[in-house]
């Protein structure tokens, strides 16, 4: 493992970051909520995610600067985003930065289509706590799983958090993903809240109709 490099992502990693976001959104299912919400194909959504990342706005899960990656012999194998909620250039909640990015980069007609689906996605829109360190969108290439890369990236995020005096780290995970839940538990996280949607369409939109908030104090 001595040749593993844990480093901040750069715009050069954009292909892997797009894969990370799409894979994390789908969480092992075929449900790609972002594409469904805006009535767009996966390929089109990939293109828009690339355009969003390309804007290089800091402070949310669509920020290149939020991602830390693991690299082995020049190949990125794992990535995980993290940021301090509300601490960005403009002091905005990450949810607003994210919606500004999406609204700006997607075609108007697709943004409008999301209105009809609001009740489906709303129950799982979890408000993020200002001043906490938020983790989102983790992905490791299949052949490299179970080797601790994610733990090393989480460790790097924890160091970042501690350096700026942030002591609480939170992550959201769908309950259909026991491997991820186990991995977070192994890294010191515990489930603190459970969000469930009773809208029957939610589970065809997202990987599950239940999302867990996990937390770790460092």
């Amino acid at each position, binding site marked *: 493992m001595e040749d593993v490099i844990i480093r901040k992502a750069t715009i050069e990693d954009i292909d892997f970051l797009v894969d990370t976001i799409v894979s994390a959104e789908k969480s092992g299912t075929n449900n790609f909520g972002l594409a469904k919400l805006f009535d767009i194909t996966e390929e089109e959504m990939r293109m828009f995610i690339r355009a969003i990342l390309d*804007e290089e706005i800091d402070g949310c899960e669509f920020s290149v600067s939020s991602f830390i990656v693991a690299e082995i012999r020049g190949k990125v194998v794992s990535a995980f985003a993290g940021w301090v909620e509300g601490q960005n250039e403009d002091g905005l909640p990450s*949810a*607003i*930065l994210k919606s500004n990015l999406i*609204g*700006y980069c997607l075609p108007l007609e697709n943004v409008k289509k*999301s209105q009809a689906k*609001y009740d489906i996605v*709303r129950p799982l829109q979890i408000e993020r706590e200002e001043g906490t360190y938020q983790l989102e969108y983790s992905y490791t290439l299949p052949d490299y799983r179970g080797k601790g890369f994610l733990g090393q990236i989480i460790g790097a995020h924890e160091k970042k958090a501690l350096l700026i005096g942030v002591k609480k780290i939170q992550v959201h995970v769908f309950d259909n993903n026991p491997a991820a839940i186990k991995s977070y538990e192994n890294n010191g996280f515990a489930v603190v809240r459970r969000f469930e949607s009773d809208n029957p369409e939610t589970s065809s939109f997202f990987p599950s109709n239940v999302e867990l908030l996990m937390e770790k104090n460092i």
Partner: protein
Amino acid sequence: MNRNEICEKLTVIFQEVFGDNSIVLRDDMTASDVENWDSLTHMLMITKVEEVFGIKFKLKELNKLKMVGDLIASVESKLQ
């Protein structure tokens, strides 16, 4: 269009998008003051503002809109 007219139109948009006819705009109002003002409705609100006023925000401008007063001022300057 003067500031009052802009505020009137924005009030209609806010009431419609956030589903609350009792919303009265204040300059210092933020997302945390309005129920249902979340990432999705924020996007729809901005889209509606652009449509109603016939304007288009740049991404940097959007990220400077911290409170309702910033939105009013930005719409006002774009209409001048």
